[in-house]
């Protein structure tokens, strides 16, 4: 029986996890990663290029220089396998082959709910896709109406990721235990029911949101089998992977899923300054499809001191990293915005608008949203944030980076002094009617105020609206 080419390539890279150069996780984190990144920044004259006055980069030459340095970094580093403490390296031929053979689109979902993800260049008029929501914890009893609400509008939300269940049949879920295995299947079944309730049975699902180990994924994937669905596998920071990543991807391939694999880069972490995080992020975007055979990559830059990525440093870093890869490859990427304020606050709406406008004009193909209240509190998520994110992200397609940068300079001062102490907002029960699927009058008023302000500043929000 012949072997699927992706499985074959994945196995070749898994083999390297047993034969690659030996390196301890600690040496990788505190020596190899920071030293290689700093030397690459110096070699290409990229140190101190962070520009706080222009949060959205408009300089193509700078993006291309970062790409060249990130490309070299990917070839020099590879991914460290934490389980074997060996480096999975790729040579230039493998990387070039992956770039050459990479698909021209990803078809997600089926029937009338099918959507097409395409590679996007900076300022691309093709609208990016929005998956909702991120893994914010919600009470078991509101999961169904909450998800039904989140996916209600076809024009705004394309793919379901969904919240994370706090319990399964009333019992606390402990990761890596039979509770998680049970939860994996249970969440998948609830998702299918929510899709049916919302009349969107063909909508793609991106795996099991609550599965933090492979157990939940292995249990949940069979219930979501089929070519339109997606398996998600996120790697540890920075440029590392584990057998758990391979487990999930292998299982996803077994069930005909698209593979969304990813890894994040932290400003202030092992990659160092914003410029270092840009390089690490570009290397991640190149290595993940080459090593883990992802159909699209999930990666972004995060600011460790702000617990989010809506501050100036992270906005700039994401804009440069996304533009660099979009200008020089066809790789499709899911770029997440990490808001810190909660539901029913002006700040959430500003953060989301700022981050999503940036990702859209820089060339992201997809995002997963929202991260209401930084994902820190149970039930601090409503459908309203997901709708807002869809409205902004899709409306900004085709904007120029120059216009977006000028708007960004006016939005940032509205919230950046609160980034270290963002408002928590309100839980869904206090600001959204899940029966009527409408926001509270207070939340509706906040939304209308911010939306009008942003339209006045030049954000084309009147292009997309609820259907």
């Amino acid at each position: 029986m012949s072997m699927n080419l992706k499985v074959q390539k994945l196995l070749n890279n898994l083999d390297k996890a047993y034969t690659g150069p030996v390196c301890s996780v600690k040496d990788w984190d505190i020596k190899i990663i920071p030293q290689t990144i700093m030397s690459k920044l110096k070699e290409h004259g990229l140190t101190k290029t962070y520009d706080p006055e222009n949060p959205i980069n408009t300089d193509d030459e700078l993006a291309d220089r970062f790409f060249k340095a990130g490309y070299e970094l990917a070839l020099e580093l590879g991914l460290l396998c934490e389980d074997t403490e060996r480096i999975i390296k790729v040579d230039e031929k493998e990387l070039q082959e992956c770039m050459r053979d990479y698909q021209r689109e990803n078809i997600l979902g089926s029937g009338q709910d099918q959507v097409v993800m395409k590679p996007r260049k900076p300022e691309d008029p093709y609208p990016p896709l929005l998956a909702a929501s991120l893994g914010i914890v919600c009470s078991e009893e509101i999961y169904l109406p909450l998800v039904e609400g989140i996916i209600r509008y076809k024009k705004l939300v394309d793919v379901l990721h969904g919240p994370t269940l706090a319990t399964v049949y009333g019992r606390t879920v402990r990761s890596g235990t039979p509770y998680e295995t049970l939860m994996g299947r249970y969440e998948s079944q609830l998702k299918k029911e929510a899709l049916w309730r919302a009349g969107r049975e063909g909508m793609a699902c991106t795996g099991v949101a609550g599965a933090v180990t492979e157990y939940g994924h292995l249990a949940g994937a069979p219930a979501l089998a089929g070519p339109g669905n997606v398996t998600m596998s996120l790697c540890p920071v920075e440029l590392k992977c584990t057998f758990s990543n391979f487990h999930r991807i292998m299982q996803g391939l077994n069930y005909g899923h698209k593979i969304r694999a990813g890894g994040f880069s932290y400003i202030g972490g092992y990659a160092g300054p914003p410029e270092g995080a840009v390089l690490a992020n570009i290397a991640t975007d190149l290595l993940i499809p080459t090593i883990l055979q992802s159909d699209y990559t999930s990666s972004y830059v995060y600011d460790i001191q702000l617990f989010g990525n809506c501050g100036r440093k992270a906005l700039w870093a994401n804009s440069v990293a996304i533009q660099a890869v979009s200008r020089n490859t066809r790789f499709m990427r899911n770029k997440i915005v990490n808001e810190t304020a909660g539901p029913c606050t002006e700040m959430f709406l500003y953060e989301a608008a700022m981050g999503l406008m940036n990702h859209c004009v820089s060339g992201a193909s997809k995002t997963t949203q929202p991260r209401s209240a930084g994902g820190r509190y149970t039930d601090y998520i409503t459908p309203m944030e997901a709708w807002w994110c869809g409205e902004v992200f899709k409306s900004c397609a085709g904007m120029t980076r120059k216009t977006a940068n000028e708007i960004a300079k006016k939005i940032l001062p509205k919230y950046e002094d609160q980034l270290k102490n963002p408002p928590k907002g309100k839980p869904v029960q206090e600001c959204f009617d899940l029966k009527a699927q409408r926001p509270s009058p207070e939340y509706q008023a906040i939304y209308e105020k911010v939306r009008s302000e942003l339209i006045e500043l030049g954000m084309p929000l009147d292009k997309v609206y609820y259907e």
Partner: protein
Amino acid sequence: MKEALLEKLSNFIAEGDAEEAVKVVEEALAAGIPPLEILDKGGTRGMDIVNERYDNGEAFLPELVVAGDAMTEVVQKIFSQMDEAETAANKIGTVVIGQAEGDVHDIGKNIVAALLAVNGFEVHDLGIDVPVKKFIEKAEEVNADIIACSTLLTTSMPYLEDVVQLLKDIG
């Protein structure tokens, strides 16, 4: 000479050069500088420098970790020169730290471990995906004052309660 030695020590700690920092400690002890003064005016000052750089975005997690490692070695060297009572009186505490079972998101834990180490705690880092029993076994082994469990994941949070419960259950 005393001031110069203590300044040298601060700088080596801030740079994370454990080997040179320990050599300066030996030099300072040979010059008759009291161990506690070395720790306070050399070690602590070095920690302040790296903390300040981190807050200002001039130093990052790797610098914090190597400075923490250097400080740990300096503290061990200085304590080895003191009698038991003096050591006990001056030790801030011993911490066993790790990422709860099922969780590999260790960057926050690494920052806390590094900050504790640069601030004079004896830190035993168990790494990621640490089973409940392992925290307690290690704490018993090193006679820890604090068990610090970290997690980003909701589904790993119950393990934090499990550590507390197991401690209570075994008395």
